[in-house]
């Protein structure tokens, strides 16, 4: 293309066919989303012809009570699930990193199961579990989201544990000993030395948990009672039964939210950090 220097044998990325391949792949990945976002401003009920710019579907989406309620519910679940997953996941990471105990291998393996087990099986398991326990379905908000939140925490915290554990591996134990040598108790050493070290991974873990929770469909689908509306379930029914452009608007809002969160994380961790946590 506009090469001034010849392409070295190993500079594959500068070769035309490679660039085209990557370009096409990116196009494939982003085109649907971009089209969706563009058409959320389309003044037409259908997704096909551009009929003019409008914000009316955003208005409609924001005025659609059940859609807004669904959004609020999903955000609440994500928020609660993130906080609790963060605590449980961080504790799990410290437990595995620091201690030797009977059946440790078993515990470690079991802790990674929620990640491996197919979502449908997890969803089914929670459905059965809450049914068997006769989990009340008519609690006031936000307790009516408890079943879903519990399910989300269960599959989120192993991810948090993984991220925190990776960061713990680079911790210099002598710092902790130094703190104790200077008079700190176990708790003070944890608070003053270990916690600051794992802080970046806590942020990464929180973002990961939040996205996983917000993004989840299958498990939410199975654990939502008949009266609780969550965003993915609501959009699912809209997509299935009546494709209205409000869905485009709502989706665009969610995409922007996800991208914004990602860029906040980027600022905090650096681009390399984000790529590495996955």
């Amino acid at each position, binding site marked *: 293309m506009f090469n001034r220097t010849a392409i070295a044998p190993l500079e594959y990325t500068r070769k035309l066919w490679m660039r085209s391949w990557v370009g096409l792949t990116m196009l494939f990945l982003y085109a649907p989303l971009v089209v969706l976002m563009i058409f959320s401003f389309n003044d037409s009920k259908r997704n096909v012809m551009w009929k003019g710019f409008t914000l009316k579907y955003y208005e409609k989406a924001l005025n659609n009570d059940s859609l807004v309620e669904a959004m609020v519910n999903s955000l609440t679940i994500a928020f609660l699930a993130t906080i609790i997953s963060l605590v449980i996941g961080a504790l799990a990471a410290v437990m595995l990193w620091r201690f030797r105990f009977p059946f440790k291998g078993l515990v470690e393996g079991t802790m990674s199961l929620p990640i491996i087990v197919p979502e449908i099986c997890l969803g089914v398991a929670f459905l059965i579990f809450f049914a068997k326990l006769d989990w009340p379905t008519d609690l006031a908000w936000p307790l009516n989201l408890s079943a879903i939140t519990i399910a989300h925490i269960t599959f989120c915290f192993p991810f948090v544990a993984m991220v925190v554990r990776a960061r713990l591996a680079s911790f210099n134990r002598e710092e902790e000993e*130094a703190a104790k*040598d*200077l008079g*700190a108790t176990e708790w003070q050493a944890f608070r003053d030395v270990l916690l600051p070290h794992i802080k970046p991974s806590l942020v990464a873990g929180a973002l990961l948990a939040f996205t996983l929770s917000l993004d989840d469909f299958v498990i939410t689908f199975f654990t939502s009672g008949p009266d609780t509306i969550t965003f993915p379930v609501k959009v699912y029914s809209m997509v299935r039964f009546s494709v209205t452009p409000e869905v485009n608007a709502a989706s665009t809002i969610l995409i922007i939210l996800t991208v914004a969160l990602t860029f906040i994380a980027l600022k905090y961790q650096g681009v390399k950090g984000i790529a590495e946590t996955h």
Partner: protein
Amino acid sequence: MTEGKQPIIEIRNVSKRFGKVTAVDNISLDIRAGEFFVLLGPSGCGKTTLLRMIAGFEMPTEGQIIIDGQDMSLVPPNKRPVNMVFQSYAVFPHMNVTDNVGYGLRISGISKAETRDRVAEALELVKLGGFEDRMPDQMSGGQRQRVALARSLVMRPKVLLLDEPLSALDAKLRAQMQFELADLQDKVGITFVTVTHDQDEALSMASRVAVINKGEVAQLAPPSDLYEYPANRFVADFVGSVNIFEGTLTLDEPDKAAVDCPGLGKIYLNHGVTGPHGANVWIALRPEKIYLHVPGEGKAVRAAAQDAPDGHNLARGTIKGMSYLGDVTLYDIQLEGGHIIRVSRPNLSRHDQEDFTWDDKVSMHWRADSPVVLLS
């Protein structure tokens, strides 16, 4: 270096086992207040384990550690009157120098005003005045070590423990820090206990050295005694370089002794050795204590060193290797019996290294007070 009489640390029959491995094997020793005490030994000999037991990060499997008269068996590390400077310095990366140095004081609840003053004092002591707001990642290794030192010293411990303090520094900095640490200890006056595998460090800084080998104390003595009066082959070989020959004790009287070494010849000593006649012993002879005869010079030198009977304390051989080190030249000489002996000859004049070359036939002698008889 001031030394008191009361041992500030008493290690009594301390052993430490990790599963089947015995890291420390029934060690007993006393460390006196005010001394600069060094634990010296090769990697894996147990010296660091011993230090960590004094600090409280390992508990002895057997035995007791008594610090300033108090038994430490039940005392956790954060309550002991000792402070440690770790091998990696372990400076807290998320705190600046002031916060690092003042950490221990804050934990113990000392007032902000007093903390500020004591931190300033400590920083002056380690020559880091002006570094108060620096972050650790903006500092060099040597500077971070000073932060670690200040952080420990500000606590005014009775004993300061240092784990391999100079191993991460480059050669020049190491030499400088050796001097500075000794100077610091002199100023502050507290007891220093250091662990190192570098015998130069030990010899230059210590008031007493405990040489540790495989979990046991091989010798406990001031540096000069370690070098000139090693107690066994391990110490003789570990501290400085040495020539060791096996032999039989043929004469043993209060004021003289003789050893017959097949590889080296007849050895005469001008002092007694307490060992049974006919016992199997070893002779340790330091390279710098052997005089190489320059051709033509022989008779004069021999005449000057007539402190041994004829035929004793002499050897002949062929030069098989030479290393010119600038201030000295090392010669590896193959003796008549086939063994190699190393001789260190100072280059007193500028062309001394030209006196010998490979395959030269040479003769050498040493004084009667130079060889050391080792019984183990």
